């Protein structure tokens, strides 16, 4: 048998050598070259992706260089004054009372629904931003034109609110009216994370800048003593804070609830002297806040 094989090899020596080389070449082709080519293609694709990444990150870095941190902090404060990070019941009450007092209206009743936990971080996170709201029911007394001015101004102050329902009735034998308003006020917790560093970033659009300017034009009708928004408080990459970034003022030992209307930006808009004609003819104003706690 061996002799036969040797004889065949000897007889077809050239063919055998070329056949072995051909098989070796095929093995090299399929095991080495084709996977290497595939890897090269993947590498080229990776390079393209990386190039796009670099362009995107470079753009992001350029945006950072063009932004002034002080301006950003100021804008952040301006927007937080409109929509605080927590329920901020004190600013809500102060705003309502300031607008009412400015228009010589008497607050006869007030109640707030949807407070539950006073600190935002303790409750279940809302699914939609619109779910971050409180409903305040307020009863005001005054003349029709004063009520009209209140309705006009309450949607043009910082600490944004929306009048959901209104019911107005006249008081017997007088020019005064009682109006029961259902007002929705908003808050929005700070974002928990800012995503990946390579995520794209855009500068403020014209529409966003217009909104910022509009909100800045609205007066703040409460004692504006917000905590400074420092980089330490800002959400960090991928970090999820275990405590709320801004605690509810009721939990903060430094903050007092201010029920007397105070202005930080437009002090001339609130009359310093109270009581008004409305208030003098009615009993002493009393502010009744009835927080509704859910079980």
């Amino acid at each position, binding site marked *: 048998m061996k002799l036969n094989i040797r004889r065949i090899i000897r007889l077809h020596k050239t063919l055998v050598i070329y056949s072995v080389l051909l098989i070796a070449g095929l093995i090299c082709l399929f095991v080495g070259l084709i996977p290497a080519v595939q890897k090269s293609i993947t590498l080229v694709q990776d390079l393209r992706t990386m190039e796009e990444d*670099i362009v995107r990150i470079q753009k992001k870095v350029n945006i*950072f260089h063009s932004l002034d941190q002080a301006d950003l902090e100021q804008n*952040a404060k301006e927007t937080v004054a409109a929509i605080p990070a927590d329920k901020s019941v004190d600013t809500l009450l102060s705003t309502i009372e300031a607008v009412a007092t400015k228009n010589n209206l008497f607050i006869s009743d007030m109640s707030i629904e949807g407070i539950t936990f006073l600190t935002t971080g303790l409750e279940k996170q809302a699914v939609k931003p619109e779910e971050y709201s409180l409903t305040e029911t307020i009863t005001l007394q005054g003349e029709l034109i004063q009520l009209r001015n209140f309705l006009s101004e309450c949607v043009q102050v910082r600490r944004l609110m929306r009048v959901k329902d209104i019911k107005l009735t006249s008081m017997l034998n007088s020019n005064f009216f009682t109006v029961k308003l259902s007002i929705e006020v908003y808050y929005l917790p700070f974002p928990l994370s800012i995503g990946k560093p390579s995520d794209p970033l855009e500068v403020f659009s014209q529409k966003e800048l217009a909104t910022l300017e509009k909100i800045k034009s609205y007066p703040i009708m409460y004692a504006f003593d917000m905590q400074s928004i420092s980089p330490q408080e800002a959400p960090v990459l991928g970090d999820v804070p275990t405590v709320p970034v801004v605690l509810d003022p009721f939990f903060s030992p430094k903050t007092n609830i201010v029920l007397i209307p105070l202005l930080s930006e437009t002090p001339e808009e609130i009359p310093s002297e109270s009581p008004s004609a409305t208030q003098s003819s009615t009993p002493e104003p009393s502010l009744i806040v009835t927080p509704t706690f859910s079980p």
Partner: protein
Amino acid sequence: MVSQNINLLQTKTAVQPFLAFVQQYVKVATVVLLTIVFSGGIMVGIAFFFFGQRRDAMETERQQLLAQVKDNVAKESLLLMIRTRVMAIDKIFATQVSYAPFIDTTIKVIQSFSLSSFSMGANNSVSILVHVTSLSEAVDVLKILMEMEQKREISNPILQTFLLEGENIQIGLSYTVVL
């Protein structure tokens, strides 16, 4: 060529014609394949070297840029926070309604007469209850309402109730304010 070999027997066995035919093709295929494998291998090697170098350089650049991004994380956080708030503010602006124009329209409707109640309905509709002391005053109120409807300040004016009790007349009206 003259053979120097005096052996009359053939030293090599003649290759079968079929195998000779196959051998020709195998030889060509082997040369072609080996050429492809070697040249391809060299090209892939060069490509690997070149792209590898480039990838390393780009990775270094990327890491440097990412470090700069991380240095500016405070700005990014503030930007994101402002943006989410601005979006929320836009949504609130879209749903905010000032009820002052509705009161203005009502003041126009009632003129100097006494308003007993006012309430808002759906789609800018308003229901009011006006108190007058005579039928002529009631007619005046209705006239004003019709004039305002003709001026397209209101639409769908409806006389809901009309209650006459001695000198007291209460008129229940509803209309839609055209904003």
